[in-house]
């Protein structure tokens, strides 16, 4: 296993390097000038060329890419790593912007995943206890609804009901654990539904398998069979789902963050592209890819933890 981890870590810079090149190329060739001020006065050409010099953008994409990489790998006088300044927020450094919003997204994302795991596991297990029963059908129905409803709909409904009508939760912001409840539920419902289906289907399958039947025939109670033997196996697909889900949920959701006014990463994904903020685009994409690769690695390790039969 240690060898596998080493090997994967070695591939890491290569993967990131390729992502960097592709992103830089795309960010460079998309039309639109990052230094434009679309609704206001045109910035005079001499000022624009001064700005281009200032941002190291006057020497073409390769020159820019190399100096950007230098900042990431070796850092600069502003510290390590340095993802450069933001072109939109003139006095911010990209590293501070990501540093400020990534923990927010991770926090929201892990709460959402907790919601997803809790609801998903419980309703999946309930469904599997009596396949075809009322509880099973209703939990499947709810799961279907959870998967099909986009989160701006769930979010708006939760906001209108629990913040608007009942005033049980704050309408938005990022000030206390109370502020996390509604967005975490909004963000967690879709993966919860997915997990519920995975657990329910896996359990039903395993519960009717030969070895469980044999165990039951020898007198093992249904609960014991389910919780101690079947769930373990049924959870494996959930785990492989959790890796990418964690990466995507923890790097923020544009819709949920906007709706609940949460200063997370999701907003950067969209606005950096709209603003053609090349420093931020690169910073955000590199952060996201790093997390994605890391989470996949963690999931593979967790596989081994849950099921020691799996060799890595």
């Amino acid at each position, binding site marked *: 296993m240690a060898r596998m981890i080493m090997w994967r870590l070695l591939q890491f810079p290569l993967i990131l390097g390729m992502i960097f090149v592709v992103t830089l190329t795309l960010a460079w060739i998309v*039309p*639109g*000038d990052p230094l*434009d*001020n*679309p609704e*206001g*006065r*045109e*910035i*005079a*050409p*001499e*000022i624009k060329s*001064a*700005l281009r*010099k*200032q941002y190291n953008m006057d020497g073409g994409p390769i020159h820019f890419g190399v100096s950007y990489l230098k900042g990431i790998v070796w850092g600069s*006088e502003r510290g390590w790593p340095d993802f450069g300044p933001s072109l*939109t*927020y*003139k*006095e*911010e*450094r990209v590293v*501070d*912007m990501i540093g*400020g*919003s990534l923990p*927010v997204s991770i*926090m929201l994302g*892990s*709460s959402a*995943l*907790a919601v997803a*795991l*809790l609801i998903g596991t419980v309703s999946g297990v309930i469904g599997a206890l009596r396949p075809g029963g009322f509880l099973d059908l209703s939990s499947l129905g709810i799961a279907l609804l959870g998967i099909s409803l986009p989160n701006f709909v769930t979010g708006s409904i939760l*906001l209108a009901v629990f913040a*608007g009508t009942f005033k049980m939760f704050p*309408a*938005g*912001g*990022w*000030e*206390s*654990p109370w*502020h*996390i409840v509604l967005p975490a539920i909004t963000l967690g419902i879709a993966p919860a539904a997915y997990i519920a289906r995975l657990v329910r289907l896996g359990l039903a399958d395993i519960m009717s398998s030969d070895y469980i039947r044999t165990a039951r025939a020898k007198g093992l109670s249904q609960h014991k069979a389910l*919780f101690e033997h079947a*769930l*373990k196996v049924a*959870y494996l697909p959930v785990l492989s789902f959790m890796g990418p889900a964690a990466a995507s949920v923890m790097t923020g959701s544009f819709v949920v963050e*906007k*709706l609940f*006014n949460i*200063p997370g990463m999701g907003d950067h994904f969209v606005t950096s592209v*709209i*603003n*053609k903020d090349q420093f931020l685009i690169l910073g955000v994409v590199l952060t996201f890819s790093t997390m994605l690769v890391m989470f996949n690695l963690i999931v593979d390790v967790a596989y081994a933890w*849950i099921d020691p039969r799996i060799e890595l």
Partner: protein
Amino acid sequence: MFKRIALVILVMFSLPFVIGVGDPMPKADFVFVEDAEYNSRDPQRMTYLADIRLASRLFETLVDMDFNDMSRNPGAAERWEISEDGRTYTFYIREDAYWSNGDPLTSHDYIYAWRRAMIPDTAAGYALFLFTIEGGQEFYHYREAQLADYAKQAKLTSGSEAKAMGLWKEALEKFDEMVGVRAIDDKTLEVTIKQRTDYFLDLVSFATYMPVHAASVEAGVTYSAETGRRMDDSSYWNNPKRLIVNGPYVLNKRKFRQYSYLTANPKYWNRGSLKNQSLLARIISDDMAMLMAYDQGVVDYVPQVSTAIAYDLLARDRDDVHVTPVAGTYIYNFNCSPKLNNGEPNPLADWRVRRALCAAIDRKQLVAKITRLNEPPAYSFVPPGSCAGYDPPVESAPIFDPQAARDLLKEAGYADGSEVKGLSILYNTGSGHDKAAQAVKKMWEEHLGVVVTLEGVESKISSQRGRSQDYTIRRAGWYGDYADPTSWLDIRSSKDENNTTKWSNPEYDALLVRASKEGDSAVRMRLLREAEAILLRECPHAVLYHYVVVSLFDPEKVKGLRLNAWTRDRFEEVYAVDRGDN
């Protein structure tokens, strides 16, 4: 197994409580919404209106412009004198004007700030406002050339920080020689401008002319050995602990994309007049979240709601919804180049075609049925009433008259509108521009038979294509920067960078030049009026309507808030009553 899963879930749930989620917002006397984080707090580098509004709370200009009655009042300068020829201004800074750290405010701080805006090192978006000052533009180009030379040299021999510093010393001497600003003493500042400019005091009250605490800013400057440039420490501007200001408020606390918290500046000379002790700008970008925060009483004032929800709010007939006409005009630029970028002849090069298109737009219908915010239909580029002493020549603008429009097309050689080919409306998506474009397209088809296509793109793409004349008709808008007709009319002179229509009329240019040299302001306004009449006759752009801003506040709860055409609120006069939380 179940225990393991339960443990993981438990740990994840407890995270927010263990690590904590954000901080509670500070409590403030007056809370308002900003729909996006400020782009800059550096007065010389800012270009966005929200930033400029923020800056006017933190920094005080020599002249204080009250946008409610357009009066120019003493700000940091208690008085000023203007020479006979209108070219020399002497400002007398208040004896009791201090920086928030207790240092006296001096004329040197102003000179330092203005010089900052005049060098390419800073790349100030509004540097051109400083070019009104004698020698300002020349100094900019001097420094530009100096830096270019240095960079070339540095490539051959190696540059060094010391050399770059030496370069700046030279530039400083040059500045004293070239530029018409002079500190007579610590509290007296003399400025010589290129030529008489009636609105110079308006410029002086603009953000680019705000002072900065010279010692603090200079302390953060480093020099690039490679390019010779002076580089500011940009982190100074968003650090509440370091930022030193001279305005009514200080930046007390801020959190990126969450809030900016301003409290009364104890060193401000006029602190006694403040009606509140603290302001909180909450940054909320989503319409629904904004409304929810307002309805819950979390914020007192929403300065602008988006066009997407403005109509619904208006339709509800609420007392707290306010519509304010503002000093901006919604326009459709016409590409006036003789040939299009693809080499085809451009039908819009003929002013009669452009005017016909303008005359076929039913502006009243447009604002009544499409935009629906009671915007005033536009018959001039300069919004009526926005500049004192100026009455736009609305009679020269084409009114809605389909027959006259068809006649004009015939005169231009098109027996039928369908012969006018290759036109398309380029607009940036969002803010209802698509609906307006569809309506205009339909009007042109119906009244003229001219068929155009629609192209919705992102705003940065639209502006780039506008600049390279890669369009035929393009949606745009223009807000005045200062209360003078030239703030609008200048952008249609042949040489102006903002003139993306490539319309060029020597008579128009000559009138603007004559107006700029005219000493008598009544005559000057008459010349500008003549110029605008040409603009309205030849239609390099179609004027559709003047913008309005829809804002939200309860007049029973928020007192002292005056809305004006320049959306420049004076928050120091505002206070909220009946607030439950403080």
